């Protein structure tokens, strides 16, 4: 990596570096908030923050499409539905349920995370990567679109099935009203 930069470019690189660190901090801090928050809504916000950070990292990997998708799907769709769910859900009657003790939680979490990071990290570093000939081509929207409708058309179709099941399932879980009338009609 022996690129040389002009002075103004160096300034840009510095900004880029700062942004990179910012994304990492956002990812990690968001993750900690998501796990540790006492209020459910804070946890969701933490998750959104973390996901945004990941999206930023995708940008650094040069894959703008995936970054956009990350924001669109996870930050846009998934998190918003979570927010809805949190707001619609009835607060649990007995919210006193004790979570694991704080020290245990932090301790075991840290140990596991460090270890996993170590193993996977070493694995990724040690892997004899083969540099792809056409890096740029892999992640373009055009390529992905083509792939989705040719080679991977089947996966594409199956995703719709997953969504169908998910919708049916959530409708059933959510349809409280009819069940109640049913039960009353049936003579409890």
């Amino acid at each position: 990596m022996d690129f040389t930069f002009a002075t103004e470019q160096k300034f840009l690189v510095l900004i880029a570096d700062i942004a990179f660190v910012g994304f990492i901090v956002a990812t990690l801090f968001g993750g900690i908030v998501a796990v540790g928050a006492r209020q459910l809504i804070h946890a969701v916000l933490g998750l959104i923050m973390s996901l945004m950070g990941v999206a930023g990292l995708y940008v650094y990997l040069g894959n703008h499409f995936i970054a956009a998708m990350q924001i669109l799907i996870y930050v846009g769709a998934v998190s918003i539905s979570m927010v809805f769910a949190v707001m619609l859900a009835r607060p649990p009657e007995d919210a006193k349920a004790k979570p694991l003790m704080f020290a245990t939680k932090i301790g075991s979490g840290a140990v596991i995370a460090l270890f996993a990071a170590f193993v996977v990290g070493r694995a990724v570093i040690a892997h004899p990567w083969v540099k792809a000939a056409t890096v740029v081509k892999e992640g373009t929207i055009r390529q992905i679109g083509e792939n989705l409708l040719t080679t991977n058309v089947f996966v594409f179709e199956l995703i719709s099935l997953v969504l169908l099941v998910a919708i049916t399932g959530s409708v059933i879980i959510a349809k409280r009203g009819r069940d109640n009338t049913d039960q009353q009609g049936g003579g409890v």
Partner: protein
Amino acid sequence: MDFQLADLKLIAPHIALLGTALLVLMVEVFGHGRRRPEATWISLLGIGIAAAATGMSCHENRLGFSGMLAADGYSAFCNMIILIVGALTILVSSNYLKDERHEHGEYHALILLSMTGMMFMASATHLLLMFLALETMSIAIYALAGFFRTKEGVESCFKYFLLGAFSSAFMLYGIALIYGATGTTQIHGIMEQFTQIKGLASSPMALSGIALLIVGFAFKVAAFPFHGWTPDVYQGAPTSVTAFMATGVKAAAFAAFFRIFFVAFPATSPVWSQALWLLAVATMTMGNFAALAQRDVKRMLAYSSIAHAGYLLVGVVTATAAAGTGMLFYLLSYAFMNIGAFACVIMLGRRGADSTNLDDYAGVGFKYPLLAAALTLFMFSMAGIPPTAGFIGKFLIFKAAIGKEFYWLAVIGVLNSAASVYFYLRVIVYMYFRERPEAAPEGLRSGPAITVATVVAAAAVLILGLAPGFVVRMAEAAMSTF
């Protein structure tokens, strides 16, 4: 590599089930919530069509959809197991749902959708397709677990969902690592990469990927230490759904597990077979020991299903054609004996009170002799006592293990199955050697459909035990199509 119309024939059974599921949903919607007993018959009809389609497509013996899925003897056999599981579950549910005032078509639709996912799992030759199929199956099951909206049901649904998502994430990460290492997610392609690229078999990334893939499968089949959810979820879910989960999910997950590890990763088998060896031993021992301490029949059956997962893992560890034959046979017999046992549990229950404590079984033997005889048969089969299906299944699996010189594994397996007799037998002891309490409720929650299911299951357990030749040959033929 593009889409071909002829490939549709390969997924005809899946399409039949999906279509039936949609039809059932439609009927439900346009029936304006009136009770719809025809959902049962429509579903059974759809399963019949799917079975016929499976029969027609099993001779195709080829990959379709750019190598995404295979229609071969193996997938046909697994499809048949799944269809049998589905049909029995629907028969078993019919009266149960009515009694519990939850007779809705969505239930059947979800069962059918879940079965579609299971069948895709059994056919998948592509990790991503397998993952999507697994999610299809799982999401439907999450919803089914909470179908009754009882406190325990919702709790089990929630727990299962949370942990399922947790482990799915590991699995997906594993798939990503394998893709990173080999550049493909098609299992035959992965196998070729392992033979072509030197050092890939000891590459940490590929191995980490395989480890994470094991996590995902181990969670679905409820192997130690990924089994924590099982007793809670099995106990909390509606009994018919528990039966479906214990048999269908296990069949589908083991089908995919075996196919993927048998086809894609033979190069690394020394490593993963050691890991799975440990997992199998821990799973069966833990399951049996914990089952010893249970006084609730549903919970006991949950731990017993963990133990059975351990025996089935022996088949994956061995990873030979003979082991596959044994595994397929075991999955089929397990489907019959487990659903049969749960059918008996349902019949002895009451609305809102499952009565699954051992004490509720006291004296059942003389009050309801036929039901007790059937349950006795299922318990013997689970304990692996000849001449029942369970014995033949264990025999085939352990024989294969010894054939590949996994002596200790077989020894531990046989020792475990010897120990397991104790808690299966306890149910029989309660039924035949205890007085029925005066206050015990009268009458059975029975009906024509559940009776048919129980009789079919009992007959199958006996026939598979007495004359397993035909089915064993079918399983062998299925294994030869890899």
